């Protein structure tokens, strides 16, 4: 199970890296989103995927899955959600102000 998850995460990272290296700003944001999916799945996988009950005490199971990575993912998801929201608004504003979403045209410093 861990092996196939690792391959999937690898694929996600490949796609994310490819998208980040493109020129369109929106593709770059999609790329960061896909990478963060890969990251979250990676935490889950690295915590171990051994079968056990959901980490709820009322469930009468004897073994439980590791609850710590789930807490870490939950934290990482909301942080990433906030950053992505800011990033999207920023790119909207940049498009309004500078009139382009092409990273090539976002180069340089004003007074050089």
């Amino acid at each position: 199970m861990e092996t196939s998850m690792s391959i999937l995460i690898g694929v996600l990272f490949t796609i994310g890296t490819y998208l980040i290296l493109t020129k369109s700003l929106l593709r770059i944001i999609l790329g960061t989103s896909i990478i963060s999916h890969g990251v979250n799945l990676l935490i889950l996988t690295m915590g171990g995927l051994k079968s056990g009950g959901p980490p709820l005490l009322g469930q009468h199971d004897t073994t439980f899955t590791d609850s710590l990575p789930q807490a870490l993912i939950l934290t990482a998801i909301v942080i990433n959600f906030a950053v992505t929201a800011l990033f999207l608004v920023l790119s909207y504003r940049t498009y309004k102000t500078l009139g382009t979403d092409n990273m090539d045209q976002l180069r340089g410093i004003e007074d050089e």
Partner: protein
Amino acid sequence: MINFLILPLLIPFLTGILLIFFAKNVVIQRWIAAISALFNVVIAFLLVQKVRNDGIQTLDVSSWQAPFGITLVSDMLSALLVLTTTIIAFTSIIYSFRSIGVEREKYFYYPALNFLIVGVIGAFTTGDIFNLFVFFEVLLMASYVLLVLGGTKIQLRETIKYILVNVISSALFVIAVAYLYSVVGTLNMAHISVRLDDLGQSGIITVIAVLFLIVFGLKGGIFPLYFWLPGSYYAPPAPVMALFGALLTKVGVYAIMRTYTLFFIHDTGYTHQLLMILTIITIVVGVIGAIAFSDIKKIIIYNIIVAIGVILFGVSVMTPDSLTGSVFYLIHDMVIKAALFLLIGIMIAITGTSDLRKISGLIRRYPGLGWTFFIAALVLAGIPPFSGFVGKVLIVKGGFESEQFWGAGIVLASSLLVLFSIMKIFINGFWGTPQDYKGETNVPVRKLLIAPVILVTISVLYGVGSEIIFPYISQAAETLANPSVYIEAVLKEW
């Protein structure tokens, strides 16, 4: 008094929340921000004294025992960094009154600044690796806002690049934490150190060590990963630039110091050698940038990169002397970089340009500014009575003791070129024929000068009084050189 060490974190946090309610009333915002920042300086000073007298302070949040809950740890290194951070925060706030402009102040400038301080102090104080990630995100999120606030074209453009780089490095940080968790099964830093001690350094640990170096190198701006820094730090206004230059990169440097003296100490042949090579190239690249540009912002920005190289070279050598030197130089550099950014902020406010070729003869009209800048330049280069000297001497001594002649030699040579780059600003900008600049009469130079004068005075006293400060610094370096002190303080029963 057991909760004492959370106070420097809590005060700016509550202040930040409170300030949100007074968004449109700039005068109240200023007063609250300044008073709470000053109060925080006092608290941080008391914390340093407490750590000095009673040893490392730890706080198990919610009374969960050490490896299971989140532990906040205040050893001498983090206490000193917290004190430095609060001083820089206070001076940046009082500098902002006259320089940042009411428009920005109305749109949550002071709350964002306070949250930035929360993140920085939290990152210095935490004893949990994932909590360190969370505090990184707190400070980064605030820094995105501070960087883009105002919404000029250059700010929008550079913020996009800055966010992109930091989103990727945060993703790498979580990956590194996930790998480390799968190997050691714990997140508490002291407990990780114990587990790694049991495991010895296998190949996978070295890989994780390098991954952490990449992550914190991206935050801190070491050689192949510094590319985002010159552009991003160029965009914001002066007080924000001072906060970024003094604090943000130093959090990355602190994290490298922590992980490379606490976690990855069993196979230093590879990891620390790699760090050393990278830091030497960092120094060279920074120096090249510092002497290449004739733009005053760029010169100071590249001097940040040089200083990061020097500090981390001391860490990579790992002798007690060089670690002491690194801690000494780290605090010196935070203070003096903030002072320099605030000073060039005044220069840019007067002249309306950061191009050195368009500035001359400032010292005739503004002697106070000129001589403050001159002293700051000498402090930066490490001329003996001032504070850059002691740290660099110890780093170079450590380098020679462990026979790293090339590295130590480059650290020495870099001082000369740093002095050249900063004197270039002084000679071209302050000497020569005085000019008239548009709008210079509107700049309240005397009031703006208060903050950098405070910082320069502190750094002069820091150098002159190094005899008094030295016990604190060596206590900080002792924890770095001997991690068992840290582990015993956190995990009491181990």
